């Protein structure tokens, strides 16, 4: 099982001070907190949305929400995980608000070519959009859990801590989520390995 993160006590104490000072309205402290985490949040949003300007807007929303909710934050779980949860909610909301750009049914398989050509890149983008769209349309408990894995790149253990649920529940939710994703993405996840195997047979 994944090893839990062990934050350094000094770093932890410093972060705690920044959080407390931010919660009491100290804008410089909040600036430092944002400085620490803006890359992480923009990255989560970008992985979820695939568009930088939109990702930045969502990241701004995340920090506005965080700023508002900081006075209620308790130090009983890592700030990073709490932030991940706020970010995952914001990005999946944003994802659901967007109209799907491609239809899953009409999608073509990306060509199994070793040399990436523009068509290949476009197909890869379509594929990523399809995955994001499929995640956005999962039932909420599946969606929130897999968003932390797919967009937040958290381990099972970190997801358990972020959502405050047992590890077994994380496993069963990811099981359910991925089963549904495979159903909904259909042929897109019938591995290109199969084609390679078929071609080389």
């Amino acid at each position, binding site marked *: 099982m994944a090893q839990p993160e062990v934050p350094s006590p000094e770093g932890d104490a410093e972060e705690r001070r920044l959080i407390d000072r931010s919660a009491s309205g100290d804008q410089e402290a909040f600036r430092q907190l944002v400085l620490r985490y803006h890359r992480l949040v923009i990255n989560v949003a970008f992985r979820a949305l695939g568009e930088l300007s939109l990702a930045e807007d969502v990241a701004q929303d995340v920090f*506005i929400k965080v700023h508002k909710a900081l006075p209620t934050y308790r130090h009983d779980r890592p700030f990073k995980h709490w932030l991940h949860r706020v970010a995952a909610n914001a990005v999946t909301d944003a994802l659901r608000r967007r109209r799907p750009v491609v239809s899953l049914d009409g999608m073509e398989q990306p060509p199994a070519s070793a040399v990436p050509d523009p068509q290949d890149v476009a197909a890869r983008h379509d594929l990523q959009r399809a995955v*994001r769209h499929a995640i956005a349309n999962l039932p909420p408990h599946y969606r929130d859990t897999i968003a932390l894995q797919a967009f937040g790149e958290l381990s099972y253990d970190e997801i358990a801590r972020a959502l405050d649920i047992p590890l077994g529940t994380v496993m069963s939710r990811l099981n359910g989520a991925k089963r549904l994703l495979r159903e909904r993405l259909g042929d897109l996840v019938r591995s290109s390995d*199969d084609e390679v195997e078929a071609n080389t047979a």
Partner: protein
Amino acid sequence: MLSHATTRDWLIPYADGMLASDERRPIDGHLAGCAACAAELREVRELNLLLVTLPPAPPVAFAPFWLKLQATLPQRRTIKLPTFARYRKLGLAFAVAAIAALAAASAALAAPSALPDNPLYPVKQLEESLQVAVTPSSGQLPLKLYLAGERLREAQAMAYDHKPRLAATSLRAFGVIVNDASAALKHADPRAASEDLKRLRADLDAVERANVTRNDDDADIKQVVAADLDEIDRIEQPEAVTPDPTLIIGTQATPQPTPQPTPRPTPRPEPSDDEHHR
């Protein structure tokens, strides 16, 4: 041998590498003899590949991100006067009036957080003059300290945003405000004053850091920061040591605060670069 159904239940944590070797072994055994489960594992892995290959974000500059965010944050500092509690001697009623005036002015005019490069900045300056005008003399010191801090916040943001001229202008305005408040500071509670000056000094350092970090290392900013630090040093020096005539500059028509009982200035070592005055 593990059943078909049980194997399928464990395929996802198996593919995610979440199982210990003794948990993996029976699944390995089943997969070796079951083509259907092996095919399903390939699908699970392909899905995982799709998920992990979602591309990461390209690098994003922090300063513009922060400035945009900062402009949307509620301006709690606008109504939270610095060291208010410690200036209680100056008159609680007047301070309350000052807070009310600040809050009313902020609500009426929508530019409390505008930075010098914002078209609404003149509105903010107007708002501040209004605040100074309506605040009674005993509320002037907390207000001036607040405004001084505000100038430094602007200077820092401008330095971050590669706008050294605007940063230097805010720094000069800071110098004028602090100079203006110097007499009141010298007569205020020495501990409170010392803490306020310490905070301003730290904010000045932050401006200097922003100037250096943004690779501008602008000479004008450095010079004004040095002059502003000198100003703070002068205020912190014991009264007898600083009969400096330059302190008179900029104290035009400032209402003097209520005289305070015996000032007890914090003793500080004399600054070595005293000839650095503006």
